[in-house]
């Protein structure tokens, strides 16, 4: 069965560069959630989208933006990268009306140098 796909799996960027992370939900899923987990830190919810509209917002920095496209995949855009942005970014998808279960991707590990 298809799972949540994140790309790239690993990314190395320099300070002040930009990065774009992608999340492809399970087919038919209409909701995407983004999380950030820094080294040794608890995961933080960043933002979620339902039917291409932002549905919930967590601790997403102003330098970051995200959107969900017509095919339901989502992209997290990160600008002016800082060393502290180095983290594992993972996303989850769900089909809100039919199930409470979310399925997670394996994450993108971003390293800012």
């Amino acid at each position: 069965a298809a799972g949540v796909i994140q790309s790239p799996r690993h990314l190395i960027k320099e300070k002040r560069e930009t990065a774009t992370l992608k999340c492809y939900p399970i087919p038919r899923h209409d909701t995407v959630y983004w999380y950030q987990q820094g080294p040794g830190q608890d995961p933080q919810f960043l933002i979620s989208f339902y039917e291409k509209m932002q549905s919930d917002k967590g601790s997403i920095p102003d330098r970051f933006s995200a959107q969900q496209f017509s095919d339901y995949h989502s992209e997290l855009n990160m600008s002016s990268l800082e060393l502290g942005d180095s983290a594992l970014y993972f996303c989850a998808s769900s089909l809100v009306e039919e199930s409470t279960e979310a399925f997670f991707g394996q994450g993108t590990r971003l390293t800012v140098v």
Partner: protein
Amino acid sequence: EDKVVQSPLSLVVHEGDTVTLNCSYEVTNFRSLLWYKQEKKAPTFLFMLTSSGIEKKSGRLSSILDKKELSSILNITATQTGDSAIYLCAVDNNDMRFGAGTRLTVKP
């Protein structure tokens, strides 16, 4: 192949009961184990465990990691209907690998 297995897959209890959810893993380069609660919204982070034998507690929820047994348990005491959810276990080994979840239903 890395894997994370949760049990049971589904559990139905009555309010006031105590439940224990299990998570076992086989992964390389283990970093930490995480528990989440999933309702009809963004999954909520509960605990992150990195050291064996140290219990983490939050209200009626507690969790402990056993690195020797490659497993963790999540305990919920005096369950309430609001505890009904899917509880997800994840292992961070440079990727984030999730179990299939345990669907807990607490009946009044």
